[in-house]
């Protein structure tokens, strides 16, 4: 929990990260060899996760494969997923996911923008948005099935229902932000409507919108998994099948890890995009 006090290139004292040393007995750390090593974050991560892997392997060996697959078994499982064609099922789910998500965005972003821009729209829609947001959407599944059956639209609607809220809320926040901070300044300069849109609203709200997309995508994935578990199809079906007789945890865990990797990948990608867009957003402040 040390805060590193270092000297920046301008010669000012810079305090980074964490909290300053809380009172501790003993002198200041003299950073000798192995202690310095322990402060390197990759070393720490290696130690921590290495230990986890070791415990995993040990448990797997002791308790047998119906409790936990060993690491080699898990790796083989990865391979089997591809060779046995399960990957195809996954891709099918993925396609549906993207389709549903895209539709959700097409709905959500304009709605959010309108809500952020026009107080009237927000007042009317906000109760519905907020209430639906907190409704457990899983309770809606049976109704949905009655309404649209269990085909393409079922999964698509579920994804839309889950994914649509964060983009709405965040887009609205982004537009609202522009309104409060920048619009007056822009108007004072007599900016035309089109330019307002492209030069101000778009770049300034972009990071917010991307944040909404990022969070929305996580929800979309969640909705998809739940939808598929409910009707026993797609990736959800695989997750269920591998966890029942015959127990194939050596296929289950690779599947789960794949999903995690995918989720983290998309998340990091969008976070990067958010970061990249932020300077542009701040630049519009210099109107």
């Amino acid at each position: 929990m040390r805060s590193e006090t270092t000297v920046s290139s301008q010669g000012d004292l810079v305090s980074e990260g964490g909290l300053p040393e809380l009172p501790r007995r003993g002198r200041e750390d003299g950073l000798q060899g192995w202690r310095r090593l322990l402060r390197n974050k990759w070393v720490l991560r290696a130690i921590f996760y290495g230990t986890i892997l070791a415990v995993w392997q040990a448990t797997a060996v002791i308790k047998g494969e119906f409790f936990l697959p060993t690491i080699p078994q898990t790796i083989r499982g990865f391979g089997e997923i591809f060779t046995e064609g399960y990957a195809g099922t996954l891709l099918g789910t993925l396609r549906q996911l993207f389709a549903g998500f895209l539709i959700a965005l097409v709905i959500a972003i304009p709605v959010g923008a309108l809500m952020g821009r026009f107080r009237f729209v927000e007042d009317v829609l906000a109760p519905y948005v907020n209430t639906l947001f907190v409704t457990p959407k899983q309770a809606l599944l049976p109704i949905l099935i009655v309404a649209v059956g269990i085909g393409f639209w079922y999964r698509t609607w579920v994804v839309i229902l889950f994914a649509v809220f964060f983009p709405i809320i965040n887009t609205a926040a982004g537009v609202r932000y522009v309104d409060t901070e920048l619009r007056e300044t822009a108007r004072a300069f007599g900016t035309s409507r089109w330019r307002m849109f492209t030069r101000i609203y778009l770049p300034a709200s972009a990071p917010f919108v991307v944040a909404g997309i990022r969070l929305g995508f996580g929800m979309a994935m969640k909705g998809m998994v739940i939808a598929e578990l409910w009707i026993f199809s797609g990736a959800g079906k695989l997750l269920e099948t591998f966890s029942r007789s015959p127990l194939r945890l050596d296929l289950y865990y690779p599947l789960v890890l794949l999903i995690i990797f995918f989720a983290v990948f998309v998340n990091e990608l969008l976070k990067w995009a958010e970061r990249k867009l932020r300077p542009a957003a701040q630049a519009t402040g210099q109107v």
Partner: protein
Amino acid sequence: MKGAVEVRGVNKSFPRHQGGGELQVLNDVSFSLDAGTFICLVGPSGCGKSTLLRIIDGLIPPDSGEVLIGGEKVREPSLDRGFVFQQFNLLPWRTVLGNVEFGLENLGVKKQERRRRAHEVIKLVDLEGFETYYPSQLSGGMQQRVGLARAIAVEPTILLMDEPFGSVDDQTRMLLQDELLKIWEQAQKTVIFVTHDIEEALYLGDKIVVMRARPSRITRILEVPFGRPRTDEIRGTPEMGHLKQEIWEELKSGATVEG
């Protein structure tokens, strides 16, 4: 003697932010003061005056050298020394009264006594009537008065102030300076006051320690010739002007950077 401060051969360096190596922020700094003196540390940014103040308080340990207060070595912060920060550092969820009491709580003073002392000090800094206000409702100048009250409530032997009026506007600053002097004249504690404002230093202090940067050290210690109590008129006198110029020259030459 209690309240006498002695700084001996203090060195301090910090690692560089980018690129390796360290920057020597304080270089063999030594000086001493008698108890009850009001001394100002003046210098450009980066000359280490704030660091020096913190070393004197015990917040940061020196690399080498030592600080003696009343003959005793300083190891860690203690309520014998009051500190006033540039950024106020008030606790936003506490009222003015609550904030002033903060140090007293650490002393273990009982509630009734605490209240009494806090009220006394609040009166001293002219904030009577504002006891139940929250920091967010106060102006910068008032917030700093709370910071000052908090520091003197614990009745420390010496008072350390790190550019305390740096965050307020000019007019408020001058008012606060006068208030500070008024309070100090009553208690006559040792005060070490860090500032980059030369006029402020001359207006407030008995002595001025002029520091330079890179390498950081003391270039000069001078006695301020103005009598006490100080009044506003001093600000406009030619003597003030000359002294300001003198110190400014000193700082300018010290501030040329070799990089």
